[in-house]
């Protein structure tokens, strides 16, 4: 086995949900045998529509759900599921959630949100050192002046700023891998690219491995190295980002691409329906 040292690997992941309908039980296969390897410094986009299982994969990687079968390997060895091993895993793999309005606790200050992960994963640090790290994290996500932002509460920030706090929180333990579950879909359009750009810059600076979950093909193409297209729990197409978008092979990928709005086709739809009568 010639495993690269820094990698996060999903191997044959399966997730089934048991649904109860009255007295009858049925099984929903949300994720069917999904494998991929995320290496440090690279971004993989997991693209699919709602219900395709992409968020379930994100939650399994973040250890919020337990896979029905399959393994998650960190640097080539099986990852922990409880206790100290799980804590170590969390120090390396973090998540940015979709809704910045829900992922920060309204009760706590921004500083609290960033300070907790640092304390948990680096109990050896002194109070002043923790504070320094909090401020430098805020600066890294360009929330300056950091001392002011540290004191604020989530509702005092805009959506984009909150999502930057969420990114800082994910970086706080010193994570090497980030799962970003639709990180910009709840943000206003004019700030989405800015937040993605920031994430990309941080990724380059720290050689992070990023799993970018999205339904938006255009940002998937520009943000990631590799695209996995998911449909009903399975990966139907995978490949380098440009290849998947510019030269799709699977029918579903083609359908997705066909459906995406493209201003270049200005008026084409009108002419098409007009000629069809």
């Amino acid at each position: 086995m010639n495993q690269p040292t820094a990698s996060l690997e999903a191997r044959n992941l399966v997730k089934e949900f048991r649904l109860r309908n009255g007295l009858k039980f049925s099984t929903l296969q949300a994720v069917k045998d999904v494998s991929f390897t995320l290496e440090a410094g690279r971004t993989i986009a997991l693209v699919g529509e709602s219900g395709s299982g992409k968020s379930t994969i994100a939650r399994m990687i973040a250890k919020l759900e337990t896979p029905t079968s399959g393994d998650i390997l960190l640097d080539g060895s099986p990852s922990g599921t409880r206790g100290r091993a799980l804590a170590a895993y969390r120090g390396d793999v973090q998540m940015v959630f979709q809704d910045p309005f829900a992922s920060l606790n309204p009760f706590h200050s921004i500083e609290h949100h960033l300070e907790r992960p640092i304390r948990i994963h680096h109990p050896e640090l002194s109070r002043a050192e923790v504070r320094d790290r909090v401020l430098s994290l805020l600066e890294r996500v360009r929330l300056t002046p950091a001392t002011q932002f540290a004191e604020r509460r989530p509702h005092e920030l805009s959506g984009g700023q909150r999502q930057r706090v969420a990114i800082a929180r994910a970086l706080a333990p010193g994570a090497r891998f980030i799962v970003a579950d639709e990180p910009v879909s709840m943000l206003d359009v004019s700030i989405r690219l800015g937040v993605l750009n920031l994430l990309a810059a941080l990724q380059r600076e720290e050689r992070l491995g990023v799993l970018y979950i999205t339904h938006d093909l255009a940002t998937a193409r520009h943000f990631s190295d590799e695209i996995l297209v998911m449909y009903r729990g399975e990966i139907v197409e995978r490949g380098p980002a440009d290849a998947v978008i510019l030269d799709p092979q699977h029918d579903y990928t083609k359908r997705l691409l066909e459906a995406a709005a493209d201003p270049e086709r200005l008026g084409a739809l009108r002419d098409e329906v007009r000629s069809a009568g």
Partner: protein
Amino acid sequence: MPEPHTAVDEAVVDRTPADTFAAPIGITSAVPDTGRAEAEAAKRGIRRRMPKLTLKLASGLVLVVGITLFGIIAPFFTQSPTFSGNPSLQPPSADHWLGTTKLGYDVFAQLAQGTRGSLLIGIVAGSIALVLSVLFGVLAGYLGNWSDEILSLVTNIMLVIPGLPLVMVIATYVPGRSWLLVAIVLGITAWAGPAVVLRAQSRSLRAREYVAASRVAGERAHRVILVEILPNLLPLLTAQFLFAIIFAILGEAGLSYLGLGPTGSITWGTMLNDAQTGQAIGTGAWWWFVPPGLMIALLGAGLSLINFSIDEIINPKLRIAPEYTRRVRKAAREGRGVAVEGSIA
């Protein structure tokens, strides 16, 4: 992709126009900007969670604090409530502000001691109910699965056992009933209802992304509950605690009136019981039964007023509702192009 409900732009603004009308004005929703109300309620964490000092809250606080201070301080300055050397059944006078009882006890002294007793029972029973309801409700809601099933089963059993009869049964079987025993019994029978509410609330809080986020950050379960969930339950817990106090004081009064109250202590309930057995109504000794009755009513009213103010934090719609209605009327009166009927089709 649903658009976010609140702040639009990156500028840090306390209240952008968008905050006010970003939410689509649904045809069905009565108050379109609940998102804003919610955000406002969360403003500045705990400071914002403190209810605004309204007339309602102020009068509630004055009543409750006044009665509490009376219970704490007054007993030191009165004669002994069990000194029977006074002339019996005297109406209020300069010597005996609230008159005397049939056995020659000073009613004012009894009332002072009784306030202390009733409040003690209320607070102890309320605390017991609070702890038990948090234990059963929040844990069941947060843990889910089997723990939830078991905790909920216990809660539901306690819920269907009628409280007062149970208290009466326990009270009859125990010969020497101290006030503490009565308080414990009242506390144990009062937690199930609040626990059900807390379970539902914690379940919904547990599903919030910030709880998932703190789990991903590596927080342990007890910290998630204590630091992430409980603070957001504070207004509800306070309301439930106050309600449990009212419930316990009324319960104690009821028990005492039936002669099943604490033995060897004086409470508002035992005073009422004495007044009843001493035929205070028949002899027209109103000064004997009116003061304790009035105190119960006043304390109940005070706690309820505070509770209403807390309710408005839990449910901001209640607070903005009167003002909102006023503005709606104004807009309807002055505005042009406003939909008059509710239906569209």
